[in-house]
């Protein structure tokens, strides 16, 4: 069964039959290619032997930074952190005539429940990420880059530090890179356990040594970012794509996936009730069915699939009816959810969806930064009502209160966290309202919350 995830050679190969006899199109693995070679350790020598740091040689001093931006725009690369904003366009927002420092921040704060791809990219092939960082710095004219990595990833931070040391010694990082006159320095900056610091302006606040509270936008980081200077924040996976786009050309990249709007591959992180959870790099636009049943091996206990999350905890649940939805930005959005961070969580029949929504809600309640009242207070109210319903002490009017709260949180906060935190509840209320009702009916029949006339307790015979 493992054959489906065998490393595929450089050129895309035509369809070949899988062990179960079905024909499945082969695909090219780009980002995970090196690390899929058994024994690949991610050192500088191994990365160079696999063709690494060629993009820097081809680009720095040989291609104008504006041409690099144009190439990335042409490739159609979109942010892999969650929002899916076109990378080249984001870079283009930096003021052209600004004199003074600019910054690149690599967002390695991977915290979206269901997502574990950046950790693998950093721990197994750190130089691929570094090469992307250097290329991005060159394109936007930044001489300093900070990798903001979540504090828990101690090992990944150490691996990156070591890789930076190797790259500096080899002349890929530092002053006058490879004699081109380009200067780029890269530092690792560990966060300290706050989901919100993955939001780009909260990340900047945190990097400045403050509480990680998202900033009011505009102004955007492109003009007023780190220390008030023009700044680009890009996700690890986004940056890791850059060396490949520059060595093999934007046209090649734009032909992969679901052109024109969702190009390239995506590292899908599959978790939950599947036989083979893990990271699978597939062309954008693969169906959820293929990802879950072919690559991730199907359902763990062969129970039917009940629900899945297509893009991390912030993306609303989808149902078995959505299994043929293509996993690209537009198709998932059209199905009422979002591709987000690429974290696909699969849930089998028999799981209570109110419980599942509560688990996610507890996450958001814990991680709300507290800046905006609708989110700070609302998450607390939502979690209390959800706990009450799951504990079979709910009331029918709670359902209306839940919907009402969700409506009053989404869109009314400084950052997208507000929209994210209502997703689990809104999604489950939409498709599994009957499970909420059943729990509340149980509460009612257990007579736990029925109003009793005053004094009834004393006189009732038990």
């Amino acid at each position: 069964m493992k054959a489906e995830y065998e490393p595929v050679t450089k050129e895309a190969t035509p369809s070949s039959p899988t062990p179960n006899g079905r024909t499945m199109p082969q695909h090219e693995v780009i980002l995970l290619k090196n690390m899929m070679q058994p024994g690949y350790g991610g050192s500088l020598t191994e990365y160079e032997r696999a063709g690494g740091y060629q993009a820097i040689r081809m680009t720095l001093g040989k291609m104008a930074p504006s041409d690099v931006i144009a190439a990335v725009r042409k490739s159609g690369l979109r942010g892999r952190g969650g929002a899916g904003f076109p990378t080249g366009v984001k870079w283009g927002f930096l003021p052209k005539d600004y004199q003074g420092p600019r910054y690149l921040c690599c967002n390695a704060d991977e915290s979206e429940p269901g997502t574990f791809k950046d950790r693998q990219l950093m721990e197994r092939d750190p130089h691929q990420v570094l090469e992307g960082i250097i290329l991005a710095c060159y394109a936007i004219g930044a001489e300093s880059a900070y990798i903001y990595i979540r504090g828990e990833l101690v090992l990944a931070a150490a691996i990156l530090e070591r890789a930076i040391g190797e790259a500096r010694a080899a002349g890929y990082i530092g002053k006058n890179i490879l004699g081109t006159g380009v200067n780029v320095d890269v530092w690792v900056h560990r966060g300290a356990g706050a989901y919100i610091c993955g939001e780009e302006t909260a990340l900047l606040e945190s990097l400045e040594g403050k509480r990680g509270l998202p900033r009011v936008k505009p102004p955007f980081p492109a003009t007023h970012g780190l220390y008030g200077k023009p700044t680009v924040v890009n996700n690890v996976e986004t940056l890791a794509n850059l060396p490949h786009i520059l060595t093999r050309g934007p046209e090649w990249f734009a032909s992969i996936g679901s052109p024109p709007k969702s190009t390239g591959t995506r590292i899908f992180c599959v978790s939950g009730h599947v036989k083979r959870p893990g990271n699978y790099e597939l062309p954008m636009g693969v169906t959820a069915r293929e990802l879950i049943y072919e690559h991730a091996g199907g359902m763990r206990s062969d129970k039917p699939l009940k629900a899945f999350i297509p893009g991390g905890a912030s993306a609303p649940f989808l149902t078995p009816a959505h299994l043929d939805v293509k996993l690209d930005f537009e198709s998932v959005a059209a199905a009422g959810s979002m591709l987000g961070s690429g974290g696909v969580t699969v849930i089998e029949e028999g799981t209570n969806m109110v419980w599942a929504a509560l688990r996610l809600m507890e996450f958001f309640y814990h991680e709300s930064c507290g800046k905006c009242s609708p989110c700070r207070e609302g998450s607390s109210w939502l979690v209390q009502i959800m706990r009450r319903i799951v504990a079979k002490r709910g009331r029918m009017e709670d359902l209306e209160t839940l919907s009402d709260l969700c409506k009053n949180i989404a869109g009314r906060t400084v950052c997208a966290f507000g929209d994210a935190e209502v997703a689990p509840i809104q999604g489950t209320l939409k498709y599994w309202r009957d499970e909420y009702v059943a729990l509340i009916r149980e509460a009612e029949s257990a007579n736990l919350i029925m109003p009793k006339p005053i004094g009834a307790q004393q006189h009732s015979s038990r």
Partner: protein
Amino acid sequence: MTLSEKYRDEIAAILARYPVKRSALIPLLYLAQREQGYITEEAMIEIAGILGLTPPQVYETVTFYTLFNRKPVGKFHIQICKSLMCALVGSDSVIEWINTKLGIGPGETTPDGLFTLSLVECLASCGTGPMMQINDDYYERLTEEKVDQILSDLRSTGSSQLKSGPFMWPEPTKT
């Protein structure tokens, strides 16, 4: 001995990375926590002095981030992920195992000061759950036997070979 005396060179190296001093706050807090296992008030005051901040500015930052301990924790700080993805594959059982084996619940420390248990939200290890982090290390795809082994390793040698990483899942297939 103060932090600035003991870690003069390391502090200088940290400060050199940033054009604005305050950016060094989180790295310096890590240094203080490494030294004492938690962030003491004296450390906060000293760091404020190094960075030209007021102590409340340091305190407001410390209190925002969950990785900073404001009171002592056990020698081994066990953090079990309880978010949905791990819960689907059995994180509640891991909490129970730890509870039975060590006699501690969330937020508690064993009387010998060895283990503290915390329940935490997603640690970016959803495909290899259930999982826990103990100090700097991740332990993934936990089973009861594995948990027993890890605890006994930590007790006897202070570390366990069962820790994971560099992370890749599924692992590369041998051809």
